[in-house]
């Protein structure tokens, strides 16, 4: 697809839901290394509830309202760190896409930029703090560059997903500064950040859905 419409967004959220159901135990184990093992449960719950909400609202609600509904539902259903940050991301993304009917490359760049900024503000995290931000900020950057060069949605997303994977690798060198993982300090070096992994999964699944 060359643009994401309201009905595509609903399918995308279903794909995210299915993906997080599959990745649940992997994320539990990953978060368990230097955290409290809740991440897999959080993400599975958040997207299951989000899908139920957007499916009930239907495409006629439009992109922005669907994203807002998804975010609001997540905030209620999965109010852990990553659940609330994801909710914040969706709510900010909804604001960024107000009045839009389709998401092309420029809109997608705006979405992820708003998402990343929302997380940074809410979590008071900075780049290099070993969080999801260290994946989403470069993702937004790549998409902005792709949009500037007039790239189509699918290749732009492919580039973003590749950058996400590279950015995730870079989190290995960082020391966690936030959340339960922060307590592990130097022991987090060498490990990929769990939240950043969630960021990669979001972008990769989105890229696959758009690629069809």
């Amino acid at each position, binding site marked *: 697809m060359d643009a994401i419409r309201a009905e595509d967004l609903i399918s995308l959220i279903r794909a995210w839901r299915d993906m997080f159901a599959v990745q649940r135990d992997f994320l539990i184990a990953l978060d368990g290394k230097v955290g*409290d093992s*809740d991440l897999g449960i959080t993400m599975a719950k958040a997207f299951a509830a989000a899908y139920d909400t957007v499916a009930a609202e239907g495409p006629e609600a439009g992109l922005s309202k669907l994203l807002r509904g998804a975010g609001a539902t997540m905030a*209620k259903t999965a*109010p*852990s760190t990553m659940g*609330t940050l994801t909710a914040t991301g969706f709510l900010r993304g909804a604001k960024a896409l107000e009045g839009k009917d389709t998401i092309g490359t420029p809109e997608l760049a705006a979405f992820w930029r708003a998402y990343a900024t929302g997380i940074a503000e809410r*979590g008071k995290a900075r780049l290099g703090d070993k969080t999801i931000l260290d994946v989403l900020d470069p993702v937004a950057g790549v998409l902005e560059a792709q949009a500037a060069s007039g790239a189509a949605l699918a290749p732009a997303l492919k580039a973003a997903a590749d950058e996400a994977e590279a950015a995730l690798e870079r989190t290995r060198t960082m020391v966690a500064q936030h959340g*339960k993982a922060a307590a592990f300090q130097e022991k987090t070096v060498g490990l990929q950040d769990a939240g950043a992994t969630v960021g990669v999964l979001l972008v990769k699944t989105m890229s696959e859905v758009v690629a069809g």
Partner: protein
Amino acid sequence: MKKFLNDPANFVDEMLDGIYRAHPQVTYVNDDRRCLVVASRKAGKVGIATGGGSGHLPLFLGYVGDNMLDGCAVGGVFQSPSAEQMYEVTKAIDQGAGVLYIYGNYTGDIINFDMAAELADLDGIAVKQVVGNDDVASSVVGEEHKRRGVAGIFFVYKAAGAAAANGLSLDEVTRLADKARLNVRTIGVALSSCVVPEIGHATFDVGADEMEIGMGIHGEPGIGRTKLAPADAVVDQMMARVFAELPAGRGDEFAVLVNGLGGTPKEELYILFRRVSQLFEEKGAKVKYVWIGEFATAMEMAGASISVLKLDAELDPLIAAPANTPFFAHYKA
């Protein structure tokens, strides 16, 4: 997993149902069991709200009651409640004098309480926050803002609750709560893991003859895994960290909380307290108030924590004040 439960997904809500059935002193608002508030409110009093994950009873909701807290947003096991739940509690307990949030220093809770405070602000409700960070093992001196909040929050609740009951303003209640926060230090030691119902197996492993000093109440790492030492040696090691930050000199007065993490029998807590008391005695300092039992747990985790509050003329009467909540009753000392 050996637990009394039905569906793990209903663990928290069935527990809450049990609590409301047992304790008419508390009720809930917004048709949401996880928005717990005192059944009868005192007009004009500063409201005090707390919140946090489940699995730590009596923390957090157990201290909602007379002379302590007015409301609590209740999360899933080891998970933050939602900003909306905190906001609903805030609205319900505000009596025009504003609301103080007292909770532990965990990212999920902070993010959500911040959101709730923003929502309350839009309604014109004055909100202040005091974030407990008493766990000396969770970060070094100078980086106290990174420390976790653990059992020492009990003293912050106690001081704030008594101050609010005395009719003080939001600013004054906040100042005294913050003073208690700055004067309390906690250190814990874990002997075994706990099991989160929805996960079903131990969160982490501690070897059969090991202990971990400084482990957090969700299993966060502490200062190091060592062989289990005799009780007195364990206390000496723990208290050295506390005394380094809260010097105890001749004539100084303290309140002490020896807290069981869940699986450790009270008998052992008293053996630990015996040594704590000896150490204060050696320094010529006085343990004026002491509580021993389960005040902040991690499900069935075996282990204990020691919280120490340095008293002064302002804090002393607040700690001595009577209190009566479903999980904590105290006659005036």
